[in-house]
């Protein structure tokens, strides 16, 4: 489903380009849930951003269901993000000017995949029915992250990307959010790639890919 081949990415610094990814190869099958681990600076977040089509890479290739990322323009990448990918950030990144309900349905409506029944069910399952008229600022961290999960899943994306989704939450809340996320991913038959540094979290997924110095160092079944 997702194929990454010899992926290189470096960032411009004052002196010289600083390589972050130095030839990453991986393959993820449809419906698979993969944990991306590694130390700080190993390139795991950068890799996630590249897979989310948020940034361009220097060399190599990423294909999602056969669609090659390299050579895509701004608009094409935006289309891809809108229609195929759902992203969940550590900081939730809800839209503060919109109500919880509008936040939940925002991505789906943006990609024209809004389905009222599914939206209602999703809201119910996330336990947010009482909160749809509230503003994000009035929610707790766990509630906000559940909104972010709902927003990502509502459009039924093929690929869900999560960057430390529970990093800002306490263990119990994080675990509950994680349960919901895994359930919904499984139910929508989406593929999940999740950056985490928590071994326990990684253990709940199908597979774990460990990055070191911008390369895949270890692939292990959970």
């Amino acid at each position: 489903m997702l194929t990454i081949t010899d992926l290189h990415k470096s960032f411009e610094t004052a002196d010289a380009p600083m390589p972050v990814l130095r030839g990453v190869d991986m393959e993820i099958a449809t419906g698979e849930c993969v944990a991306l681990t590694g130390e700080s600076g190993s390139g795991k977040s950068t890799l996630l951003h590249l897979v989310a089509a948020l940034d361009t890479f220097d060399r190599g290739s990423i294909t999602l269901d056969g669609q090659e990322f390299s050579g895509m323009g701004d608009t094409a990448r935006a289309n891809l993000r809108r229609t195929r990918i759902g992203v969940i950030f550590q900081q939730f990144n809800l839209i503060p000017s919109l109500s919880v309900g509008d936040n939940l349905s925002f991505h789906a409506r943006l990609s024209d995949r809004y389905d009222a029944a599914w939206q209602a069910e999703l809201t119910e399952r996330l336990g947010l029915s009482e909160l749809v008229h509230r503003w994000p600022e009035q929610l707790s961290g766990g509630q906000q992250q559940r909104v972010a999960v709902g927003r990502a899943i509502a459009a039924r994306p093929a690929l869900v990307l999560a960057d430390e989704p529970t990093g800002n939450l306490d263990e119990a809340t994080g675990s509950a959010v994680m349960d919901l996320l895994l359930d919904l991913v499984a139910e929508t038959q989406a593929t999940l790639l999740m950056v985490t540094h928590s071994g326990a979290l990684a253990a709940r997924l199908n597979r774990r890919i460990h990055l070191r110095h911008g390369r895949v160092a270890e692939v292990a079944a959970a």
Partner: protein
Amino acid sequence: MTGLILRTLLSHWRSRPFQIVTLLLGLIVATALWSGVQAINAEARASYAQAAATLGTDRFDSLRPRGAQRFDQRAYVALRRAGWLVSPIVEGDLRLDGARFRVLGIDPVTAPADLPARPDLQGDALTGFLGQAGLILTGAQTAGRLPADADLPPVRVMDGIAPRTLVMDIGTAQRLLGMSGQLSRLIVLPEAQDGIPPLAVAGIEWNRIAPRGADGGIAALTDSFHLNLTAFGFLAFAVGLFIVYSSIGLAFEQRKPMLRTLRALGVPLRLLMLVMVVELTALALLAGIAGVALGYLIAASLLPDVAATLQGLYGAQVSGTLSLRPAWWLTGLAIAMGGAGLAAADTLWRTARMPLLSAALPEAWHGAQRRAQRVQGIAALGCFALAAVLSQTASSLTAGFVLMGALLIGAALSLPVMLSVILGLGARRARGPLAQWGWADARQQMSRLSLALMALLLALSANIGVGTMVMSFRDTFTGWLDQRLVAEVYVTASDAAQGQEIQRWAQGRVDAVLPIWSTETRLGDMPASIYGVAQHATYSDHWPLIEELPDAWQSLASGQAAMINEQMAGRRDLSPGDRITVPLPDGGEWPMIVAAIYSDYGNPTDQVMVDVDLLSERFPDIERLRFALRTDQTAEIIAEARDRFALPSDQITDQAAIKALSLAIFERTFTVTGALNVLTLAVAALALLTAMLTLQLMRLPWLAPLWAMGLTRAALARAELLKVMALALLTAILAIPVGLGVAWVLTNVINVTAFGWRLPMNVYPADWLRLIGLSLLTAAIAAGLPVLRLARTAPRTLLGVFASER
């Protein structure tokens, strides 16, 4: 440690030169407009004071004969010999090549020692001053204006003499003015006794006129004009501070991580604050110096127009060049500092309360906005209530300006509430997620932009208000000129003999010869002119009367009635049917009934209109020089009169020329207002720009998720531009009623108290469209740069939002 912290803080500006440019620019512009206006006011006031000091009317009482403009100098000697300590003055106007100069003849031997132009009795100036050739003392500027070929005594340039004033010995002045043996008034020396010399001493009934204070009384007339300028200066200053506020806010946002790091590294908060204050002070000082310098340039370029305005409106002589005053520099710097402090207070407050670790929760904008709007709404209602009360009761200039202030502040405060309601409605009716987000986001953004939008609202409503007033005034004025200038030709004889000749000649040549003779006198303690007009249909059919008794025109001929101008009626609270008494030169009195009140725009002084025959009978010395001629052969009559009497072109003019001249003076009067209007709007645009730049940075976390969800940067930029334009459009539309309110206050309250005339207010919708266009343009320009920068934001910058710490 302090130095290290300061260097660290300052390093921020090195990487963001544009930001420090906006910060400094805002402060410079605010200081410049404020201090420029102050410089103009100071210069004008100094000119008044100088004029009053030169004429000795600032500190000394004067004696004038009742009802006469001049008197025999033997009366002066009689008073001196009776022990009255008075000093003689000869005053008059001298026309040279069409320019008017004020001649002041003094007797240096008896003049008060501190009369500025008096030559020192111990100085060698005295010999030349009293010599047979005479000597003219005048300022450098005035000396330059004197025609080179005029037959005048030698000129010596001297500091401290009022503009356009020529000071000379009393004998020289009598010669130049053709007033041999005559005096205009007497200065009462400080050590002289109180009271009025009895009639027996010199055979003259005297009026003793109290000193008019340092500004020579002209301030009472010009106050309104200066208050206007000050109001504009303050508006511009306030708008400029919005820029500073935005820039400082921007810098704070960007330096937040740096500040956190410094705090985390153990820098005490107090020291950090201190260093920030030091940094701010240094920047304010820098900007203050530049601002005052720029203000000087602005003032210098506006001053000639201001001088022309004051001359045209009030006859006040103001120097056309600016002198540098240390006090003005210092206040300019103080204003810059104070402004910077005011604008930075919020940032310093936020720095002081900044948590060491960044908050994970999104900013609680909804609650904050609602709370702020509640407070603003209540304050706005208070302002509007005050304005409503004042609109019914305001009768002084100060009350008028308070009313204006209440209206403008109320409007500014209610702007966020109004916009919020409109945007909320828009969001509810929006279809599609993007549109919905746009409305909602505009509403949120509005909180941050509200200061800049308020600035825009103020600039726009001032623009509409002043524009409406000026255009209403122009329409009224041209209509009034048509009524007032009915005769086809106006002629002024060079002397009384020629006046008689002209009258004789014209009687056979034209349909009617209408003398227009006038004299200056004092009614009560205020000066007034008395005009004589003939009984003719020219007046009774056209003259613009506001209120009248029946048969007003006929009653003039009886000598029992007079007409007065609107200014006089307003100032002295007179209505038709009331009585006035004109003192006569022979010591008698002329009691009359006010038969009518007429409008008299552009005239600062009170005016009484009586029958010309009766006037010349009762004032035998009146100058019989001016005539209005009715004819249908305008060109021929002018050509013939010019040939026959060798009249220069300024002594014989047709109606059209006078109208053109009047309108030209009118236009000049409002040049300054127009210039300040444009400057204020420009500053508002700058405020919007800096606010947008600040906002853009703070809004990145709100935009990045949208981008992550699949909106291109270009689409986001377009949405941003649309939002700002929509806000500007809404603000402009809301500015229209506010501007009309301002115009109403100007025409119905401020004009009445300041000038003494009421104006009908017209509306000019075409002008509103122009302003709406202008504000959209303003917004487009202000938003252009930030939006362009958004469209070009590197993905990595956007991705930075998602990193764990921002």
